[in-house]
């Protein structure tokens, strides 16, 4: 019986070759994906680097490219992001905690679950129009920062709820049981055993959701109506514009210089986005280390 057993290892080099082909294939995939991003970055930086000046950051929009800046749009973006975070974070995390920890497991809950996922996939312009009719016209908030923030909140809430739920779901059942067995009530268990472990994941969700919001132009087109804003918003009821809109405005102008200006604006927007993400990564790593090692 055992004499029939024979391994054919003559094709070892062929097997290795197939492995290498697969590796090359995967590398190509990465390369194609990276190429798009890198070529975009290079083009933007080449076109825009000489336009990134204090003028661009601190000046108001102008008809003259060399004097034009995006100060109102920059402040508008930061203002709106702050308000959006204030609205989204408590509501989103609260909803996620309710759905994961408190909600009874019945068809209503699963209906809500499915639709949260569906909402995350709705095109952003739809949210823009929804915000326009509800917040701007129906609630008479006008084209204010508040209306913009509420609209953005609607847009990113499903993302945040999904991410937070995943983070909460990933907390082992054993942690909850241990806390219950020590005489914790529901909220103590959630607060002391579930949330600390879920926190890094929730934080990632918050940042990803906010990064999505910072770059969105389509819903802001509907809310801000692309007006020419030459003042910095002060109260949440002021009219405003955001960076993607300002960039969009510059790109659509005929003069070449405005395209350079737009590229400069993109660099600043990317810088803002990347620093937000880096802060998130740093915070997350810090908390993850604290909770795992």
């Amino acid at each position, binding site marked *: 019986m055992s004499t029939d057993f024979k391994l054919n290892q003559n094709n070892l080099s062929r097997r290795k070759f197939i492995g290498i082909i697969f590796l090359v294939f995967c590398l190509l995939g990465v390369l194609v994906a990276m190429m798009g991003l890198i070529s975009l970055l290079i083009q933007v930086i080449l076109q825009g680097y000489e336009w990134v000046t204090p003028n661009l950051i601190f000046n108001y929009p102008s008809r003259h490219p060399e004097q034009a800046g995006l100060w109102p749009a920059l402040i508008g973006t930061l203002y709106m992001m702050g308000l959006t975070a204030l609205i989204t974070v408590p509501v989103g995390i609260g909803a996620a905690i309710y759905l994961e920890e408190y909600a009874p497991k019945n068809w209503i809950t699963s209906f809500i679950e499915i639709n949260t996922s569906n909402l995350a996939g709705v095109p952003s312009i739809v949210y823009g129009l929804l915000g326009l009719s509800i917040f701007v016209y129906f609630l008479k908030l006008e084209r204010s920062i508040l209306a913009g923030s509420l609209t953005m909140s609607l847009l990113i809430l499903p993302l945040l709820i999904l991410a937070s739920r995943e983070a909460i779901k990933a907390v082992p059942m*054993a942690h909850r049981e*241990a806390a*219950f067995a020590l005489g914790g009530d529901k909220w103590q268990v959630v607060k002391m055993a579930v949330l600390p472990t879920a926190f890094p994941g929730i934080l990632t969700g918050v940042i990803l959701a906010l990064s999505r919001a910072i770059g969105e132009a389509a819903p802001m087109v509907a809310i801000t109506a692309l007006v020419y804003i030459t003042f910095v918003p002060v109260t949440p009821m002021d009219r405003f514009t955001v960076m993607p809109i300002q960039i969009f405005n510059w790109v659509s102008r005929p003069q070449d210089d405005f395209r350079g200006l737009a590229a400069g604006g993109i660099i600043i927007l990317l810088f803002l986005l990347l620093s937000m993400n880096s802060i998130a990564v740093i915070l997350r790593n810090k908390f993850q280390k604290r909770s795992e090692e």
Partner: protein
Amino acid sequence: MNNEQNQPKDILKVKNLSFYYGTFQALKDISLDIEANKVTALIGPSGCGKSTLLRCFNRMNDLFSNAKVEGQIIFDDLDIYSQSIDPVLIRSKIGMVFQKPNPFPKSIYDNVAFGLRINGFAGNYDEEIERALVQSALWDEVKDRLKDNAFSLSGGQQQRLCIARALAIRPDVILLDEPTSALDPIATVKIEDLVNVLKKDYTIIIVTHNMQQAARVSDKTAFLLSGEDRCGVLIEYDYTQTMFSNPKIKETEDYITGRFS
């Protein structure tokens, strides 16, 4: 206290307890009394309901939304399943240690402090935490590294940490749900030695699938078995020595001599 130790006192009395998950009956008409400051072992084949019974003692089964209990468990003259009793209070009196060590991803110190914090302890935390760790025979191994994460401990140490965590809030009863099934033999011996020491101060109920362990650590043993309907019933309950040397019921004898499939 001395007086009580001389005369056996029943700290927990189970009366005609039946337990259901939805329509499935997991336990049928169980009655037994748990003696204070003794180790009671619950043994039986997989799925006989011994863990379910254990979780009835501290109302952990309440966490399943479809759980239903009939009958009574009397603890300190109170029926723990009566409407007026808050399970949260029961669980601070009847602690539990689980099958797999489940420390929180926090420091050793914070793990032991967890129950104290939850229950609003206002005294000296350092003292209580040292006491709990000494009692669980872990103090010497961790006293210089209390700030280290609990996951840096070995499996056996983690399980003793979980015992310390349960001891910290000074429960009357400790429930151990197969506490050594995830541990190596040396760590198992340490936990068993610990159980022997702890029964001076606590009443211990231990679920085990290991009959030698039941024989080694327990004073009394309850043997549960489930029939065709997968519903657990109490077959025999007696002093461990009596039961292992002279079982009265044939099923018990078959099980403890290993003739049982």
